[in-house]
């Protein structure tokens, strides 16, 4: 671990200044991801800016009936908040499918959005990795592309043959999958003031710059995540398929929210996790469900549309079929009156 400076600003303005001041300064919130990365020498910040004194630790109702989740509220407090449980049970269920109770007690909502990929090669500084190499840390290339890629992406990857910008990593968050389905909006403050970024635009595909996980600019701090009014509390499901019952990242996950008119779907939201560099959603696919009654036959074309263009890299080929099945199950389950049953 490198020597680093540590500060604990008490205002957002100071935080933004300090953060914008050096490309090697990093915010620390719960520390559950950043500290791990520092121990493995993947992150080598010159300065840690501890934001835990900033006033972003509350969950508040918005005038329009939505809910504002402070960036520093922990994942656990968010999942168990009565208003979240009532109005956005999909989000509660999704958060609780992630990590472990101990981690969720430390992990913050802001930090969760910035958590980095779990790609093995990214974590090992002796391995070729385009995502890491951009920070001058280890060789370039993409070892996962032709290597052990069971946990890697099947959609939206960059796999150019010369490997100069290849990246087949996934963004591993559970929470963000539900936030994407719920069309949450991320509130950001930076050197140029405040802006709002819809979840769909917050994370990005690797494209030609796999080292960029999201669309924030240097010096920007997430202050809150806003949930719009529609929370799909009557028909929702999060299915997370993983290698053990808990404390494992999703191989494939699906967040679904439905609005129903009796047996007929009025509106559907479907987002996938564990399959791409960002939560995967396609409104064209969701529209296929409108006006339909739910059955495997009506859902399969939706899964096909969502997964169009998916490709495997060997070890992760199974994810395509698995995602297909998970979508069908999750949508069917959401339609049930009591979705705690299967």
């Amino acid at each position, binding site marked *: *671990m*490198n*020597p680093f400076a540590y500060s604990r600003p008490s205002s957002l303005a100071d935080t933004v200044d300090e953060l914008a001041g050096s490309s090697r300064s990093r915010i620390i919130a719960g520390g559950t991801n950043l500290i791990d990365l520092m121990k*493995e*020498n993947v992150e080598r910040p010159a300065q840690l800016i501890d934001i835990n004194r900033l006033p972003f630790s509350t969950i508040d109702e918005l005038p329009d009936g939505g809910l504002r989740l402070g960036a520093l509220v922990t994942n656990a407090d968010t999942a168990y908040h009565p208003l979240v449980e009532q109005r956005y049970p999909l989000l509660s269920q999704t958060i609780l499918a992630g990590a*472990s109770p101990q981690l969720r007690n430390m992990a913050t909502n802001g930090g969760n959005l910035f958590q980095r990929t*779990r790609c*093995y*090669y990214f*974590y*090992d500084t*002796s*391995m070729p990795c385009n995502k890491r190499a951009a920070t001058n840390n280890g060789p370039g290339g993409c*070892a996962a592309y*032709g*290597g*052990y890629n*069971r946990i890697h992406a099947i959609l939206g990857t960059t796999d150019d043959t010369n490997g100069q910008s290849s990246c087949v990593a996934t963004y591993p968050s559970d929470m963000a999958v539900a936030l994407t389905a719920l069309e949450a909006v991320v509130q950001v403050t930076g050197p140029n003031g405040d802006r709002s970024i819809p979840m769909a635009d917050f994370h990005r595909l690797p494209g030609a710059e796999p080292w960029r996980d999201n669309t924030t600019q240097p010096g920007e701090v997430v202050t809150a995540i806003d949930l719009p009014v529609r929370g799909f509390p009557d028909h929702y499901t999060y299915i997370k*398929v*993983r*290698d*053990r*019952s*808990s*404390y*494992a990242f999703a*191989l494939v996950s699906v967040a679904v929210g439905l609005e129903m008119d009796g047996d007929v779907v009025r509106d559907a939201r479907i987002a996938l996790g564990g399959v791409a560099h960002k939560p995967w959603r396609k409104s064209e696919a969701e529209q296929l469900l409108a006006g339909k009654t739910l059955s495997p036959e009506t859902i399969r074309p939706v899964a096909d549309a969502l997964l169009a263009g998916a490709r495997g890299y060997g070890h992760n080929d*199974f994810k395509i*079929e*698995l995602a297909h*099945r*998970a979508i*069908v*199950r999750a949508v069917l389950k959401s339609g049930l009156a009591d979705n705690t049953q*299967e």
Partner: protein
Amino acid sequence: MIGKPISRVDGPEKVTGQAKYAAEFNVPDLTYGVVVSSTITKGTITRIDTTKALALEGVLEVFTHKNRPKTAWFDMSYKDQDSPPGSPFRPLHDDQVKYNGQPIALVVADTFEVARYAATLIEVDYDAEPCETDLLKHLHEARDPESGVANVFKPLPPKPRGNSAAAYANAPVSMSARYIHGMQHHNPMEMFATTVEYGRNGKLTIYDKTQGATNSQLYVTQAFNLSFDQVRVVSPYVGGGFGSGLRPQYQLFLAVMAARALKRSVRVSLTRQQMWSFGHRPATVQNIRLAADSDGKLAAVEHEAIAETSQFEDYTETVVNWTGKLYDCPNSTLSYKLKSLDMYSPLDMRAPGGVTGVHAIECAIDELAYKAGIDPLDFRFKNYSEKDWTEKDKPYSSKELRACFTQGAERFGWSNRTPEPRSMRRGHTLIGWGMATGIWDASQVPARAEAVLTVNGKLRVSSATADIGTGTYTIMTQIAAELLGMPLENVIFRLGDTDMPLAPIQGGSWTAATVGSAVKVTCEALAKKLFKLARKMPGSPLAGADFDDVFFASSHIRLRRDPSLSVSLQAIVDQNGGRAISETGTSLPNVLKQKDYSRSAHAAAFVEVEVDEDFGTVVVTRAVSAVAAGRILNPKTARSQIIGGMVWGISSALQEESIMDHRYGRYMNHNLAEYHIPVCADVRDLDVIFVEEVDDIVNPLGVKGVGEVGLVAMPAAIANAVFHATGKRIHDLPIQLDKLL
């Protein structure tokens, strides 16, 4: 008499943080060593530049192959009690890299933080050569292993008997399959660490993580050419071992080397990632062909295993012999071969070879039973072995496996099973029931102990053994307390110190039998000594009695015919001029008695799985293990051992695997987030039955050890249950969901 389910005597120390582990002994003026690991698998270090590290304030030295102090030259000096045949790895010996993660430098600094930072500043250039680490690519190059002393406890296969090929060809029912096991790493909670206290005149007190303090002492004295009285190794608590501590690991060598060179106390702790930089359970490929006659009697058995080893040692395990012990088939061919690859030598890991070989044979037997149309349990009754042909047809000293089958099946409800695959389900969930047999050695080796009745009437017993969490402290305290009729709280058992009487490494499930027997003979000798002193006391009520006329109870020696006539143990020491009374003893296996018998513990596991039909996820919803392991000294600690083994069985069957990228020869999931073992939510209803088993041949206590046998049957029982649920035979472990999609 012995056999109360008492809680661990060391429990309070552990849960209150009083128990100290190797990296927690704080000695004055301690310095800290951090290991730099190679990032290539094979080749030559062409440049290693330590300038930047040395320039940091607080860095004392950086040791590499270029500047390391002189150590023993002859490679045999690096052998330890558990070395396989070959030439042991010598840390920092030269510029050659033999495996990925090899220690190539040790940074020593005033603080751990500085040492760790300095380690990142060391620049290394390599001349890398292509490496071979993938066993599956080299099966055709497998060869016979070199045999050595290690094979006394881990025998190689016997010569074939009968004609298995012909019998196979002619039998009406047959099966053949290939089973593939990947690599696993032990990963006990406590990482490897050594704290070396550099004392006066260079005397070393070494706090080491080890399963055998005496083994570490032997290694250090030989490698550094020191005498035994210059090296004391202390290891009172071990945060799990599973076999990883059976050999001295390289942090011990590096810490001692640095301490001697710097004349300072040094601590070297490995990181979790570095727990993948020495021994592992080797990848193994097994081919099995079985045949039966029309009424389900085995007609042919062929079981071949090919395992990996390093380029420098022939690590072997007993993989195929279990098949011969469990199934006494006239036409049997067992074989075991090795392939050397560019990796560190594999290392015994809980039930080494047993968990691998028994998984394969017990899946194969299940498959053959299905082909013969016979219930898998009935098939095992039909083919029950009464003698062990791998050991010259000797009978078993005891074998209550039938009772394991019957009682396990009864508790589990096996008779309610519908045999057809996919015949039991709930919604999306397929239910499967499977069973398998387990077996493990019941060994005993020599050991010594000391027992002291202290001046304040307490009993202190010691032996240089280890307690890797198995309950050694507890059961030895129980044995001693029982023999001298003392309350547990007045008995202290100590271990893990080379100043204590000699005991072997803690492995092979032999500690209860080995050290237990030493404690027994020693306490019996002390009892006789105390009786003699009591008899001579003025006005002693025992004056005319023989030893057989008395018994020890409530801290008194009492006359059998009138227990109110007694002498208290306290009175005996008081009478001894205020001096403690001690006795040492040695227990040796009674070879004359043991040699005509094959000695094993047995088990049967019955498992229910739920398989999600769409997703392929498998959950073990309940399991019953019935175990025949001789006398159970403490049903509580013994049950914990079996439960722990069963959980590992779930792990092996469904989750656990070290993933190596063979292009680089490097493990990729080297942390506990990605190296999966069961979490609490994966461990549901586990039940243990100990069946009655009396055995006066194995050892004086009649115990067989329970550390490993609980694991052996589980992977096959789970795989067989998965077949029953899904109709799919998955021969490659772990059975992750993609294999069932």
